């Protein structure tokens, strides 16, 4: 740091000094902190609070990974990334993991050379309209003006949906969610469309949220998940199984409240293997035996994180829906810890 902070010339010297190739895990352990890419601000998913501490659902993934690898959930350097800079930041090694509500698509996984380590939120594109319009279904939106963020998958999904249903619409292109809120409230468009979680968060901030309805149709699949660089399978495994550990903890009833007690050993061998009192799962990953315990201690299990950041008790008020455990009719299904 001291050499490269302020002097262009010395930065060149740092180049000359060269680069010792190591695995991401070794890099992170040597650095003592995890570089985690997050968004510059999405309500409920990642945003700094008044004290400058990052909070949110995506942030919790970073903290869990940091806790699993380093034992300290606060040993994270958050690197704010925009929609344009996120993939370069990951590809160039500026960040070790990207947790920035990024949709898992084939081209991103294959063509851009990343590995998605799972899905932490199953989202889908929805519509919000003014209650006064009296619209109760997206199929009644023929001829509507639609506020839509440019350059996103939502734009393409919208075109597809209206074409399939033989309807027309007039797009009002906007750049950011903030702009969309202003345009929508000012009446520049009848409908605002984006991911359903974003709609809920946006609606929660309105002066009179009750005057707006989110239509029941979800027109696309948006599995949002963290991702890492392709080619370092050990690091991808660590990320994937940290996320799985959070989900499995909820399924197995391990919470931040009973974690200490369960870590001492239980009658359920899977919990014992997860929390490291039995077996050597941590060793296989190249981590401490208590890695999963540290990860769960960071912010609780998946359900606790969900409830604390975007769940029904928060202003965003998202229901679990698809993001419930498979036993509850959702899609969360982690492979066994064995």
């Amino acid at each position: 740091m001291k050499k490269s902070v302020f002097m262009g010339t010395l930065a060149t010297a740092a180049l000359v000094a060269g680069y010792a190739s190591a695995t991401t895990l070794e890099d992170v352990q040597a650095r003592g902190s995890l570089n985690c890419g997050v968004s510059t601000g999405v309500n409920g998913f990642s945003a700094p609070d008044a004290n400058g501490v990052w909070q949110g659902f995506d942030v919790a993934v970073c903290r869990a990974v940091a806790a699993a690898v380093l034992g300290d959930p606060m040993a994270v350097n958050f690197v704010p990334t925009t929609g344009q800079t996120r993939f370069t930041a990951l590809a160039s090694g500026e960040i070790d993991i990207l947790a920035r509500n990024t949709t898992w698509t084939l081209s991103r996984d294959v063509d851009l050379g990343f590995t998605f380590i799972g899905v932490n939120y199953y989202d889908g594109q929805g519509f919000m309209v003014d209650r006064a319009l009296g619209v109760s279904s997206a199929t009644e939106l023929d001829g509507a003006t639609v506020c839509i963020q440019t350059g996103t998958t939502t734009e393409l999904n919208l075109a597809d949906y209206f074409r399939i249903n033989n309807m027309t619409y007039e797009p009002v292109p906007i750049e950011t969610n903030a702009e969309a809120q202003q345009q929508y409230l000012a009446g520049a468009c009848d409908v605002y469309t984006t991911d359903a979680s974003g709609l809920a968060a946006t609606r929660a901030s309105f002066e009179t949220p009750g005057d707006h309805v989110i239509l029941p149709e979800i027109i696309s699949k948006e599995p949002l998940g963290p991702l890492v660089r392709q080619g370092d399978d050990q690091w991808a495994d660590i990320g994937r199984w940290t996320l799985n550990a959070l989900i499995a903890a909820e399924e197995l009833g391990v919470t931040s409240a009973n974690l200490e007690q369960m870590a001492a050993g239980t009658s359920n061998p899977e919990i014992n293997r997860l929390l490291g009192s039995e077996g050597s799962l941590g060793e296989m990953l190249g981590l401490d035996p208590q890695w999963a315990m540290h990860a769960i201690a960071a912010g609780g299990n998946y359900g606790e994180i969900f409830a604390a950041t975007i769940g029904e008790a928060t202003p965003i008020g998202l229901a679990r829906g698809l993001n419930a455990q498979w036993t509850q009719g959702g899609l969360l299904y982690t492979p066994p810890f064995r």
Partner: protein
Amino acid sequence: MSDTHAHTVRFVRETMLPPQDPPSSQIGMVRWGRENLFDGPLNIILTVISLLVVLFLIMEMGPWFANSIWNANSLTECRQILDGASGACWGVIKDRWPQLMFGFYPPELYWRPVTALVLLFVAISPVLFPSVPKKVLYFTMVYPFLGVWLLWGGTIWGPVSVALGFVLGYVLVRATSQLSTLLSAAIVVILPILYWLFLAGPLVDALSAIAPLESQSVPSREFGGFLVSLVIGVSGIALSLPIGILLALGRQSNMPLIKYVSVIFIEFIRGVPLITLLFTASLLLNYFLPPGTNFDLILRVIIMVTLFASAYMAEVIRGGLAALPRGQYEAADALGLDYWKAQRLIIMPQALKISIPSIVSTFIGLFKDTTLVVFIGILDPIGLANATRASSDWQGIYWELFIFIGAVFFIFCFSMSRYSMSLERRLKTDHR
């Protein structure tokens, strides 16, 4: 006088009448109004329309400002207090004040950027005001290194060893003054660069091992808010002027190599939008540099902003050079001054004086352009406004943040502009 008039004229006034007040329609506000506002039908119509617009704005915005709320911790709380009325919720500024100022800088170290800012004013005072003793200029020379150390912390030997490179350069200038200009310039440029590349790093390590003078190091990613704007703006301004002068001179040079390098640089940079350069800094360089190199993002941005401003500055100064009469150049030659002395004593003082308004315009433009860094994920005030809005407490708040940020930028830019006007008046030597 004879008395012949005594009977032909009935009355002769012997005292002067006191002057009467002019008619009420010809004085004060009324006259001013008649002359300036109600002078003919077109002006009457325009005045009435303008008054209506002003009235409308006051009616619309007055209550909003009058109902300002400072003590609230979230937008919802503001709305509860307002209870349906329209009003500004300045609570967000109060709540996020440290963040808007310093970003994520460690709170216990806030004194460091504040000291750096205060010392900045001390450092630039001898440049700005003639009444300040010239000895302060020595402090001005030390300040860039001191300021960097205050802001980023770390070992003090880093800035010191970089400064030593400049000292080396200065010594070389003195030592090689007898050699030909080209040779001396080559030595003066190349040796310090070699020093920075190969010697400075080990020197820092050696010195820190002997005397570990360290303060807590603060990485660039913790910078944010107006701190980032000021760091980028001030470094850009301070560096772009000298580089711009050199480029302007280079463009007028008789040596083809220097001339074409300058022309190509200036035209290339001026032909590319700043945002492209910023994206290059944040994205493209990452691909070119070997993975794992830690080339600070804010440093990359400062370099790009400086290059951008230098190209504009060069053209502004070339305008000043072109405005000088040919006789000034010939006079300098006739006095037997060499190139650098002629530039330093005769040409530049006049050319820079002519260019002051445009130079300051470029500075102001540069300072405002720093907000573009929001697009590469640096949390400057605009970026923090977005991040603030992303928290559940403040989602949906717009005007208060933008008005505040706008007001702070206005204060900086307006004071730069007023200072440049006073500088022009002070340097005015003609009698027009």
